[in-house]
């Protein structure tokens, strides 16, 4: 059933043991995101060296989907260059919102790695905002914009 594919082990693990929570010393990009309707909050601190996201720190609270998504994202982008991150962001959006089935069920993880754990969210339209919030916040951080992100 749908709920099992939404609340996968991986999600609950990232919800309860979120990665990359340690504060960073050298922050050169920052953004806050929030979803006023359900109260999810995400803060991102990034250390960018050249075009590499060398380090990331995630703060925030909210539902398992938003917090797990932030944690998964932080793992996925850490050490990657901006081009690769843009590609991942694009694929992630497609996975969340398009009818195109980009994830291959026979080769789990082949396209988006652990991020594929969030594929089940698509069946719960109300929750897509939760999963997308960290990425929307990342967009703002990378754009160097000062306005908080929102998925509302």
């Amino acid at each position, binding site marked *: 059933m749908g*709920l099992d594919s*939404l609340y996968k082990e991986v999600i609950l693990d990232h919800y309860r043991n979120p990665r990359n929570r340690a504060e960073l010393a050298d922050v050169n990009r920052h953004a806050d995101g929030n979803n006023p309707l*359900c109260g999810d909050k995400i803060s991102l601190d990034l250390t960018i060296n050249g075009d590499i996201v060398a380090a990331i720190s995630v703060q925030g609270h*909210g539902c398992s*989907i938003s917090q797990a998504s932030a944690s998964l994202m932080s793992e996925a982008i850490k050490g990657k260059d901006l081009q690769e991150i843009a590609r991942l962001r694009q694929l992630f959006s497609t996975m969340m919102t398009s009818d195109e089935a980009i994830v291959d069920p026979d080769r789990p993880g082949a396209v988006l790695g652990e991020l594929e754990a969030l594929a089940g969210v698509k069946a719960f339209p109300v929750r897509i905002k939760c999963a997308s919030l960290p990425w929307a916040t990342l967009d703002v951080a990378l754009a160097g914009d000062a306005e908080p992100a929102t998925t509302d």
Partner: protein
Amino acid sequence: MDVRRDFPILASNDMAFLDSAASSQKPEAVIAAMDTMLRSGYANVHRGAYRLSAEATDAYEAARAKVATFIGAASPREVIFTRGTTTALNMLAAKWGGDRLDPGDNIVLSVMEHHANLVPWQFLKGLELRFANLTDDYALDMNSLRNQVDERTRIISITGMSNVLGTITPIDQIRAVADTVGATVIVDGAQLVPHLPVDVQTLGADFLAFSAHKMLGPTGIGVLWGRMELLDEMEPFEGGGEMIDEVGLFESTWAPVPHKFEAGTPPIVEAIGLGAAVDYLTDLGMDAVRKHDTELTVYALEQLATVPHVTVYGPTDLNIRGGTISFTLGDIHPHDLSTILDENGVAVRAGHHCARPLMDHLGIPATARASFSVYSSSDEVDRLVAGLELAAKLFGIAN
């Protein structure tokens, strides 16, 4: 109460709808009254000398009279139709508050107010907002209230029933405190009026605000009731048609209450719907409604107590508790809970319930909330509990 079949959306759908505090469903009688008006009686009111318009006006004014009777108003003229509770409270904040108070005056609210009874007061500049606290049992702490009130207190504006905790406040005691300093008492009745018998002659309020859509009526309309002397004194909030007496290019004078406060074309069909909702509730009897809510609350609290890791936020004293139950389950975020319950046909609210300061006060970001209306049943409570057990399993916290 065995009225589920009166509600088309529930009769044709077996969901457990436990979000009536956000907005209630509507009985056939309300839907039909509006439908009939639109199909055979519709015209603008107060304006036409032709019969259709005169009859529409009579129907609109009859709805006002029904509401007046329902809350025990001295006269239908004390009943002002607004867009909802929010607009009614904004009118009061701007026109009973802002316009009439002096810098340094203060207004006393409580920490459990809905944003509708908080943000409009924050708009006012130069006035001090003060907040009464809660007791350990989530009642309004009257000692705290007394401590906040002083001779500069001009208004005490408090919810009649919390939309988060279910707490019912002692308006008569608040009145007594207000009288010691000559303050006005405003009651946010959005949750009170749909659930308890209310008689403004004994309630203790000077003003009362409520919304039709939470009491089986339509969206787009609510009520501001006030004592006539005060309404007479208060300036209009909006200008336009129907609220005027004489109009010149540069100056105008106002029509008598209630028209002074009803600028423009009012929610005509919505008033008819509200009238029908009031008739429906009157037929059920508000004492019976209160009894039904209490019985269901007792049952729900018992059942929730059987689920490990459930925490309920709200009074244990049932005399000051309405049928609205906020809770959390272990470390499961309420938003996740709501999704899981929804998949099992149970609709509850999750979030801050437009009461962020209360959430801060409770030290939690959000709760899940199950809330009842006349059509709610123990069956639905059972389904809620089953859903919670499933959620606990999914999140690996069952026992």
